[in-house]
């Protein structure tokens, strides 16, 4: 008799434990991409996609669409449009009781501060957009955030990496920084070298001479102190933007005995630096953020790119494709790239994979849409309520959390070790088992835990006084 009671009680306890786990899982499960409803994206072409109009959810994509930096606008547009098309194909998002489609509007600032202010004001006052998406260049993002704050429109910073955008002087509760930030990147690389790799010790910092380059270097130095006290900074230089000749700097690097060169350079500086380094016979590995543009990597070749280490805002440990859904998600884009997209630049290797920065922009946009869907409204106050402390998971499993006090994204970052095409199947685990046949790219991928690289929190900001940087 007692044994059967015991059995029943045990059984009940067993079942109960499942129930509580289920309840806990439901409240803890982060939002993420809904693979189940994934629509047929085969009619999408970034060159020709047009926004729906009418009673829509309006998002302004603020970027350079004209001038020398027009590529940036094209990248942003393709990424955001992909996410928008996906939602629109599902019928849109229910907002204030009505199902509405996503409308994207191009807001061209041509990298000029005056024009940025004008165009953002036009978006807010004339086009009456609900969201401002973008941009690159913290001086321009500041303008966006200010206008957003003045007119109470939500601004989503997807691409400007400066930490001071959300500091005490510049913070606005209408602005959300979903992108990675400079300080995180620097500390992340330091963590990898000190806590995981534990090999090279001597680092040379060679960054661009402006706020991002300096913040990045500060982060790296701080990270080394914290995670790799044995490391040594054998040199530190800041070169002017769009530098023509890197030889004098590379000479110093050679003389310093450095084992790794740390840089945050982006194109064209990243390309010119690596090219000239290899031409000069400097074979050192680079710890970098933006050396992932296919054309110059092809030019440098497999050998010259082997051993580079990238810290990225898009990645997953080990196999890049772990579930059939992830493969389907990848192929939706890649198949179109291979067969359908004929207009430059969308048909070039830059757009081959929905990974890297493009992948991140797509998924940051999907996060925004997810927040809107859960807020069931585009009212800024409701968006803020949902987004603060929100957790989100990218399709590749990467976790992000929006820190409530300063609207910065707590996120893990990923370290990509570049290896020759034959070894790239360590991450690219489906046919053809490499990211690119012409140069070394991601092989082993590691994660830097988000707790190790919490974004910089300005304690002068009242909201953050006494707050836990981990957002708990």
């Amino acid at each position: 008799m007692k044994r059967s009671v015991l059995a029943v009680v045990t059984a009940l306890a067993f079942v109960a434990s499942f129930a509580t786990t289920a309840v806990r899982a439901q409240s803890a499960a982060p939002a993420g991409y809904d693979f189940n409803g994934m629509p047929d994206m085969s009619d999408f072409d970034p060159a020709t996609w047009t926004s729906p109009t009418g009673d829509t959810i309006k998002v302004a994509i603020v970027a350079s669409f004209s001038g020398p930096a027009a590529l940036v606008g094209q990248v942003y547009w393709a990424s955001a449009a992909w996410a928008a098309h996906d939602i629109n194909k599902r019928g849109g998002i229910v907002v204030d009781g009505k199902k509405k489609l996503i409308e994207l509007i191009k807001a061209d600032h041509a990298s000029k501060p005056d024009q940025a202010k004008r165009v953002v004001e036009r978006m807010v006052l004339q086009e009456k957009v609900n969201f401002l998406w973008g941009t690159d260049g913290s001086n321009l993002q500041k303008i966006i955030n200010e206008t957003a704050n003045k007119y109470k429109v939500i601004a989503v910073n997807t691409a400007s990496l400066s930490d001071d955008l959300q500091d005490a002087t510049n913070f606005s509760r209408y602005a959300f920084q979903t992108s990675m930030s400079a300080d995180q990147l620097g500390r992340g690389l330091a963590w990898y070298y000190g806590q995981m790799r534990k090999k090279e010790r001597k680092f040379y910092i060679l960054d661009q001479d402006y706020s991002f380059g300096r913040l990045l270097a500060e982060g790296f130095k701080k990270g080394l102190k914290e995670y790799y006290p044995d490391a040594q900074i054998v040199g530190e230089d800041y070169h002017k933007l769009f530098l023509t000749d890197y030889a004098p700097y590379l000479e110093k690097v050679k003389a310093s005995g450095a084992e790794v060169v740390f840089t945050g350079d982006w194109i064209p500086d990243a390309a010119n630096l690596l090219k000239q380094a290899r031409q000069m016979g400097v074979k050192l590995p680079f710890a970098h953020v933006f050396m992932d543009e296919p054309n110059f990597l092809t030019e440098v070749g497999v050998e010259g790119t082997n051993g580079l280490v990238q810290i990225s805002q898009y990645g997953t440990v080990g196999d890049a494709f772990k579930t059939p859904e992830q493969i389907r998600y990848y192929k939706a884009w890649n198949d179109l790239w291979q067969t359908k997209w004929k207009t430059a630049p969308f048909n070039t290797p830059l757009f081959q994979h929905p990974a890297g920065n493009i992948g991140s922009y797509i998924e940051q946009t999907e996060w925004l849409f997810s927040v809107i869907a859960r807020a069931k409204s585009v009212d800024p106050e409701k968006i803020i309520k949902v987004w603060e402390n929100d957790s989100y998971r990218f399709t590749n499993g990467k976790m992000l959390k929006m820190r409530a006090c300063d609207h910065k994204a707590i996120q893990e970052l990923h370290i990509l070790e570049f290896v020759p095409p034959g070894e790239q199947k360590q991450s690219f685990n489906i046919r053809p088992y490499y990211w690119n046949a012409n140069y070394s790219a991601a092989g082993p991928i590691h994660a830097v835990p988000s707790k190790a690289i919490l974004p910089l929190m300005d304690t002068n900001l009242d909201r953050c006084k006494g707050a836990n940087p981990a957002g708990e």
Partner: protein
Amino acid sequence: MNPTTSMYVAQGLHGLAYGMILFLIASGLNVIFGMMGVLNLAHASFFMLSAYLGYQVVALTGNFWLALLLAPLGSALVGVAMERFLLRRVHAFGHMGELILTVGVGSIVLAAVKSIWGTESLQLKMPAILSGRVTIAGLDYPVYRLFIIGLALLILAVMTLLLYRTRLGKIVRAAVSDAGMVNALGINIPLVFMLVFGVGVWMAGIAGVAIAPILTVFPGLADQVGMDAFIVVVTGGFGSLAGAFIVSLIFGLLSSYGVQFMSELAPVLIVAFMAIVLAIRPHGLLGARDS
């Protein structure tokens, strides 16, 4: 050689190479601005156009030397057309007219380049024969940079010879000095000017193809090198090839030694040097031309 000496030598060599890069870029502008007095703000755009044309030739044929031959000619053709049909008419409005026109043409070149080759960054492949390294004074030095130095010196030599040792050069110098008189002597002045302009743009084109393998060919290339070219020509003095050469060298050395010893200040050094020279000699170091 102990490390410090070899480092001095190395930076000296780098300074020389960068100086020659600057000279290559600026020499064409020196010819046009210095000799003809024409303010050509599209100079860097022709540099960029030639780099793109060179990329295209290499992409089609794989032959760098063909690119070095054809691309500058293509760029020069565009430049000559600009001179013949557009620039000639605005001379009457002086520098302002030239500024507006050449800024306009530069804009159009940017639009053209983006339309034809797209917005991406492209790479002009270095010829295999020049992509190795040699040992110079104990240094492991890229052959290609020696090529650039050699090319710049060659251009300097050829230009000097042409201008000072040939009849054509004599005519050009005379025409620049007093066009009316030379015209009265029966020389076809518009043709001479067109030729000079063409040569200037051609030189920019040579620089474009020669320097592209160490840089990235992208729509911002003109902006990247434009100001450098101007600063060299302005500091060196209008009309003075020697002035441009000397100033290029000085800038190159300031740049490399600046980076070595005071890297924070390196970019300021060049601009400061320019400001000082101009404050003392407003027409440039070796400039003689009357404004």
